[in-house]
């Protein structure tokens, strides 16, 4: 058993802009295996929410079924959560978001939960650009059912059972870009430096922010022959670039030399500064992003970092033009046409 609880720290210096302590973002004790990548991601989520000074009760956590989908119990203990059924988190998130557009929706899923049984709902949440953070804790296997290959397991990779996977893997980031996600990033549970700012940018993004986080399953898929092991990922990942995320109301800290830099102003005014390894790469150009992924695939590299951003996309509410007020806050007065109108309707039916 492992703990997402961090070690003791001095309370005062730890308060965030909204006056919350880091512990206000923590959850129950994890029941996942010691060393499971998922726990590190939970910790990163805690960190990101703390740093972004998100109000815990303004967050809704949603998940499907799987070890990964259990994690919402292990972070943001003061937020409401919904651990639904296998592969159906996106529809629950869609309904919840329709009911109240003012909360922050953090959806957690696994590669089995999303790429297999959940593929259809995943695709259509993307297409609607639902305003949420969609995090896949990607370990290339079905952890909770004891390690079967998932659809993101790479061809040739072999987990604890030793059986090599003969099928091509699905690149969730590429699918996400194609189907309409407006923020797409990939990271690694072992790289907090990269993951936390990616999460923070996702939080400030309006629209569907998709994060594919490689998260080794130490029990079933962390073998030498696995491409989802700690070692393999460390050795094969290649970032689109280093970057830093400057939430609104903070002054810019870093500076980059010309050319390789791309500055993106997010929907909420925050700024994303990307220091690109490849000058020609434009993170807001969907076509280039897709090609970048295909290129990395050709070179057997795992592309990480921000892969695509459309900072000014329309989310589902914008698209279907719902009121700015949360629908769940409307009352009889707002909603019921009343008896006089009903009389008119009756008349029209005579």
């Amino acid at each position, binding site marked *: 058993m492992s703990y997402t609880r961090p070690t003791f720290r001095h309370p005062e210096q730890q308060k965030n802009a909204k006056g919350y302590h880091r512990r206000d973002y923590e959850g129950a004790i994890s029941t996942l295996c010691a060393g499971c990548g998922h726990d590190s991601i939970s910790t990163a989520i805690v960190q990101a929410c703390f740093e972004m000074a998100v*109000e*815990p*009760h*303004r967050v*809704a*956590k*949603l998940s499907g079924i799987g070890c990964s989908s259990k994690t*919402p*119990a292990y972070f943001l*203990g*003061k*937020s*409401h*959560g*919904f*651990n*639904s*059924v296998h592969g*159906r988190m*996106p*529809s*629950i998130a*869609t*309904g*919840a*978001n*329709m*009911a*109240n557009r*003012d*909360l922050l929706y953090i959806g957690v899923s696994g590669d089995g939960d999303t790429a297999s049984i959940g593929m*259809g*709902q995943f695709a*259509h949440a993307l297409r*609607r650009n639902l305003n949420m953070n969609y995090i896949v804790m990607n370990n290339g296997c079905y952890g909770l059912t004891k390690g079967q290959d998932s659809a993101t397991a790479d061809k040739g990779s072999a987990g604890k059972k030793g059986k090599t996977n003969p099928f091509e893997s699905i690149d969730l980031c590429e699918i996400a870009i194609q189907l309409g996600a407006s923020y797409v990033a990939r990271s690694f549970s072992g790289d907090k430096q990269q993951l936390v700012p990616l999460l923070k940018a996702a939080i400030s993004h309006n629209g569907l922010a998709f994060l594919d986080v490689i998260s080794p399953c130490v029990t079933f898929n962390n073998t030498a022959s696995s491409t989802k092991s700690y070692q393999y990922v460390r050795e094969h990942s290649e970032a689109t670039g280093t970057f830093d995320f400057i939430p609104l109301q903070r002054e810019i800290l870093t500076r980059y030399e010309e050319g390789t830099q791309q500055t993106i102003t997010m929907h909420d005014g925050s700024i994303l500064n990307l220091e690109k390894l490849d000058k020609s790469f434009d993170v807001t150009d969907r076509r280039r992003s897709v090609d970048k992924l295909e290129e990395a695939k050709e070179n057997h590299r795992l592309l990480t970092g921000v892969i695509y951003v459309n900072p000014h996309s329309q989310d*589902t*509410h914008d698209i*279907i*033009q*719902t*009121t*700015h*007020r949360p*629908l*769940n806050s*409307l*009352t*009889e007065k*707002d*909603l*019921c*046409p*009343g*008896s006089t*109108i*009903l009389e008119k*309707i*009756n008349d029209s*039916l*005579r």
Partner: protein
Amino acid sequence: MNRIERVNDFVIRFANVNGSGSASANNLFARAIFRMGIPVSPKNIFPSNIQGLPTWYEVRVSEKGYLGRRGGTDMIVAVNGQTIAKDYTDVASGGYFLYDSTRSLPDECQRDDITVVGIPLTELCNDAFENPKLRQLLKNIIYVGALSYLLDIEFSVLTESIENQFKKKPKLAEPNIKALQIGLDYARVHFTDACGLSIKRRDITRDAILMDGNSACGLGAVYAGATVTGWYPITPSTSIIEAFEKYANAYRIEEETELKKVAIVQAEDELAAIGMVIGAAWNGARSFTATSGPGISLMSEFLGLAYFSEVPVVLIDVQRTGPSTGMPTRTQQSDLIACAYASHGDTRNVLLFPCDPAECFELTADAFDLAERLQTPIIVMSDLDLGMNDHMSRPLKWDDNRKYDRGKIMTGLDLENLAQKWGRYLDIDGDGICYRTIPGAHPTKGSYFTRGTSHDEYAAYTEDSAAYDKGMRRLLVKWQTARTLMPDPHIKIRYQKSKVGAIFYGTTTHAAYEAINRMQEKGVPINTMRLRSFPFPQSVLDFIDQHDVVFIIEQNRDSQMRTLLMTECGFHPDKLASILDFDGMPITADFITDKLEKGLAELAPLISTTQETTGGIV
């Protein structure tokens, strides 16, 4: 030949080709009779296809107010070459057969016991109109004109209908009226007094309305304050959402912003549709969806989640002929078991059974209150006949003082003032219903983790047998509470001493009442109970107890309501006799009468007091 001679009491059937625009003409005809104050009940019998196949429109005209199908056809208007021979044979002896005489009748049509009325519709139409698109439509209007003469339908009623149908574009009214006139004139000249069926103005319909059940459900959802729907198209439920959207666009637009006070999301499938409903309901919005059989099957896993995690869900099942894809454009009442016990494990869902548009409206609205009061799925069981056909119904009513019953919800304030520890699944009232919170209600209190895995009273995950057992038993307590909140059945005691009862529900109701009245007239009074819900209130049990034999009349093969009654109430099966019709066509009074007579003969031994003849008692 003895012609059928009847006033305000006959069945007429139109045989058309679908996609040929006959619908508007046929509706015009039915509504005109309705507007003359006489009850009508039209049934659309259409194929699962968009264009080119046979479709029928049967109109029951009944001064007595019988709204079910009677059986048999007194007059057929045959404008579909594909089916004309069969239509010809379907006319009752002494009846009438109107056809398009532009083409001559098939040779096999040689009856001398019916009156044949040939009107060269195509010819008349083509002579009078140029535009080919118009021609197709007006051809149908011409036979309506002819019928207005043959059946004495007030011409002004027809023209008025046309006029306000085309209020916005009067240009279009003209040719229609002209077409009516052509038909009328031709019939007057060539078929003077040829028809013994006729319409005479009455004011029986009073303030009644003519409406389809799906529109009523959609409107009910608007009135009940539904704000979110995830849905997926499927016949015959689609028009519920279309109606919901139509009325929402009319009455749910925010003045200042012109934005919508509703979110209607076309889902990728039924799993997603119900998932969206659950997500929205969990998050405090009134939310619903509508589907039909195949959708129910696909929704079953999610229904189990909603039952077990206690999320209020409103689902409308417009039943069609199953199993599988079955006959998508035919009716049936065959999803009771699938809905009542949806999903694996021990589950039970509340069902409501409307029988007419007014009830579609009311029960849909009530479903939202019940769902939130009981924190469980409520399934409104409509069917294709009710949902897609126009039905005469009492007008819709709404009490402006009505408040939405949101059930047991802890507001931020409640949480603030709460003394003891709150538990999402803690039954402090002893009625099996616990208090829920809406996400975001309070900065520090009331948050919990909803899950389909087993949970204790504080919503924490548990594999403790006792905790699980306790939760499952509480759900049974809630089920008992549900029984007390259900709408009462409609019981009609025609004769106190009668030991024979009949039970029916939904669209079986209308034909059943007619059959029961016929039995009554034959001196066999049968007490009736129209069920409106599952679970069953005490009054349902009492009614059955009071009778030796109870007929259960339903439109499915496997006596599904009977199964529910036996399972839930433990009645002796011998006592519950099934009358089943499940061929996809709405059940008829003739069928039920026949079965009742046969059934009574067979079951006589079980019936204690012999029936005295009781003449006119009602």
